[in-house]
């Protein structure tokens, strides 16, 4: 905006302001009504959902899945998507939010056009809608991501009902045992330090899977102390991963 545009704006604004109404009581009444709505919504949410308290914090657990409050889901999702590309992880978690923050701060300094009507600001409109859509999408997918401790792959189609039951039991054992902390299975788990297990049955037969689970290569812990049925479910599940 140059000086002439600034002065034109101030002139126009002062006329519009003079045509308006006093803040008290007109705007105050609206603000008050809105405040009442906010109060009612907060009270309603509090009565409906309360403030449940989870189990006490235990720094020694290794299988707990951290989840932030919903308004950090977008950040959480960026992190999850970028997790398997370690080179980009710092960029995703700190770089992208920092850049967005700086862009937000400096908005009035790079968007200097005098136009204020959104339909005549196509770049601002596109950027605004893109930002809202991206935040909404990331929040949504962050909210619907299963826990990293659960396996989300589909069972093979050839299994009978009884086999399917064993398969699901095995998948639960994988989740409980924290395998995904070091192994990736399909979309879930961490890529390393252990090898990917998505197609493990192609290269390793069931008997060898069982013996590896009993006598693994450090740092992987041994699973020989698992109850026999759980152990067999686990082996069966892993032997179907092709």
């Amino acid at each position, binding site marked *: 905006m140059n000086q002439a545009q600034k002065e034109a704006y101030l002139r126009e604004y002062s006329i519009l302001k003079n045509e*308006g109404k006093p803040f008290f009581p007109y705007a105050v009444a609206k603000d008050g009504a809105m405040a009442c709505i906010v109060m009612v919504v907060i009270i309603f949410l509090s009565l409906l959902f309360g*403030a449940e308290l989870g189990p006490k914090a235990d720094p020694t657990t290794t299988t707990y899945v951290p989840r932030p409050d919903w308004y950090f889901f977008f950040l959480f999702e960026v992190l999850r998507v970028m997790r398997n590309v370690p080179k980009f992880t710092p960029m995703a978690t700190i770089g992208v939010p920092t850049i967005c923050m700086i862009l937000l701060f400096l908005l009035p300094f790079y968007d200097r056009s005098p136009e204020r009507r959104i339909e005549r600001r196509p770049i601002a409109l596109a950027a605004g809608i893109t930002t809202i859509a991206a935040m909404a999408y990331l929040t949504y997918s962050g909210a619907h991501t299963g826990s990293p401790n659960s396996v989300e792959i589909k069972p093979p189609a050839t299994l009978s009902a009884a086999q399917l039951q064993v398969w699901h039991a095995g998948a639960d054992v994988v989740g409980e045992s924290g395998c995904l902390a070091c192994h990736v299975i399909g979309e879930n788990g961490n890529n390393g330090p252990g090898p990917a297990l998505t197609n493990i049955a192609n290269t390793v037969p069931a008997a060898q899977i069982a013996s590896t689970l009993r006598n693994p290569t450090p740092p992987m812990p041994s699973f020989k102390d698992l109850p026999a049925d759980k152990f067999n479910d686990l082996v069966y599940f892993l032997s179907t991963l092709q």
Partner: protein
Amino acid sequence: MPRIPAPPLPKALQPRPKRPGQDVEAGAATPVEAGITVVDWLDERTALSPGIRWLMWRKVPRGINWAYTLGSATLFAFLNQAVTGVFLAMYYRPDAAGGAYESIRNINDNVFLGQFVHGMHKWGASVMIILIFLHMGRVFFYGAYKYPRELTWVIGVVLVILTLAMGFTGYLLPFDQRAYWASVVGININAGGPFVGPFLSNFLFGGADFNATTLSRFYAIHMLVIPGAMAALIGAHLYLVTKLGITAPPWLKPGADDTDHALAEAEV
């Protein structure tokens, strides 16, 4: 000042009327302290009334709609957080050894209306975040951040970031599994940042890793540092809003009728 009627005294005790020639006007020459109201008394000492008039009887432009209430609604949510937060602070103990968790348990289970107030604080945070982003969206789409309101916008962005920081630091305080692990992961994410990252995580943890002081550190940041900064910045934000005036809806032209009918005709 209305006069109090004279008490019905016996004639001997009544003051005698003045004789002619006596100085009748003597009393009138001595000024008497007039009775004043509390408001007058305060105003005589503070001279606040022009300021209040400036704040309350300023004009807001024509065409103000409900979207303009989002800012004050955010402020109201902040006040709700402040009030409920004070009540929670009366019972909360920032003790990582177990006291924190137990004190929240006590608030939820034993304190009168404890879970209700705790719930209002918890859900009020979400409501405030939604409102502050809606307010920001309104300002963005109305082009209200443009000249002369750039500084108001910058302060507003700082307030958004501080609000998110409140959410982050408050999340740890109940000290359940969720709170603990989300905070550990959050601080570790900060540690991955360039340049200041390691220092920031060191500052938040109060050491190299989660320890006994981390919780009280988060508590102090959550209830002293950030709210103080926010209150000051909200003051500056409101001063600028009042000083520069609330923006008019961008589609309005001075002098024109602002009904849809008139607008449609103008477009044709």
